[in-house]
């Protein structure tokens, strides 16, 4: 890999980020659309949760990873501190893998 593809990927990625930020400032949105924009961020983030918990690339991630994320979900729902949630997820997944679960 040479510098050129890195620069193109960097420029394209920055264009997505900056384009969104700039458009938000340049256009005026109704309250309804503003609400839809925040909802779309929640939708995208939750889809990231689902896919990164269950898939590695295009394949199933194995049971240890979603099990760890499920533990995190229960702890977060029970209002456990953020650090506890995150550490419990990693620990659960690591221990299940140590026990031989993929």
């Amino acid at each position, binding site marked *: *890999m*040479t510098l050129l*593809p*890195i620069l193109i*990927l*960097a420029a*394209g*990625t*920055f264009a*997505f*980020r*900056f*384009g*969104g*930020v700039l*458009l*938000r*400032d340049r256009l005026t949105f109704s309250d*309804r659309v503003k609400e839809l*924009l*925040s*909802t*779309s*961020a*929640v*939708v*995208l*983030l*939750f*889809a*990231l*949760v*689902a*896919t*990164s*918990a269950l*898939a590695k690339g*295009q*394949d199933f*991630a194995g049971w240890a*990873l979603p099990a*760890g994320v499920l533990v*995190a*979900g229960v*702890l*977060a*729902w029970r209002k456990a*501190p*953020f*650090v506890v*949630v*995150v*550490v419990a*997820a*990693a620990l*659960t*997944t*690591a221990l299940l*893998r*140590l026990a031989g679960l993929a």
Partner: protein
Amino acid sequence: MRSIWRTLDAELWRGVLAIAAAAAVNGASFGAISVASGLPMWVPVAMSLLVFAGGSQYLAVGVTAAGGSPVAAVLGGLLLNARHLPFGLAVGELVGRGWAARLLGSHLLIDESVAFAMAQRDAVRARAAYWACGATLFVAWNLGVLGGAVAGQLVGDADALGLDAVFPAAMLALVLPALKDASARIPALVGAAVALAATPFLPTGVPILLALLGLLAVPRPARKAPEVVA
């Protein structure tokens, strides 16, 4: 910047530092994998500074290592990062007004900084959380990548430590309060179902974008007579 320190409480900083620690280890693993696949050390380092989007960096290096063309590596990475456009639209108001703030703030737009900002109860805290998370993760990720590239070998197996569970767990904890509201929960569940169903068949990144179809399930605002709230 000083106001960010005052606005954020210790609980929030602990949260940011926890995912920053995971990002540093993840970055070290990216740096080590890149060098092990035969790339010169400056490639993962420059990529992390300039692109700053872990998923697309892994993808680009993976495609290159598998003998794929640079065009495929770049296109795959861009597809994965296209979600940053709707993210920018959602958090654009938090980034700031000046050009310097917009340019720098845009570069710090990652899943984590968006999620941390969206989880705050007011705009002032959301702005502080966005900048604190984005800047801290930028430093942690890049130091991790540099360390991994210099060491040239896996500092530790990130998967054996369960560190791949940190990202979805952190995102879930941050997004959970927003899901209490049915007008966000229904589209989020529909969107996640669409993304999961599409994952085995479509290139990485596309299923996430398809999740936006869940927005079609947003309940219409009820057109009833305005209620009088005391």
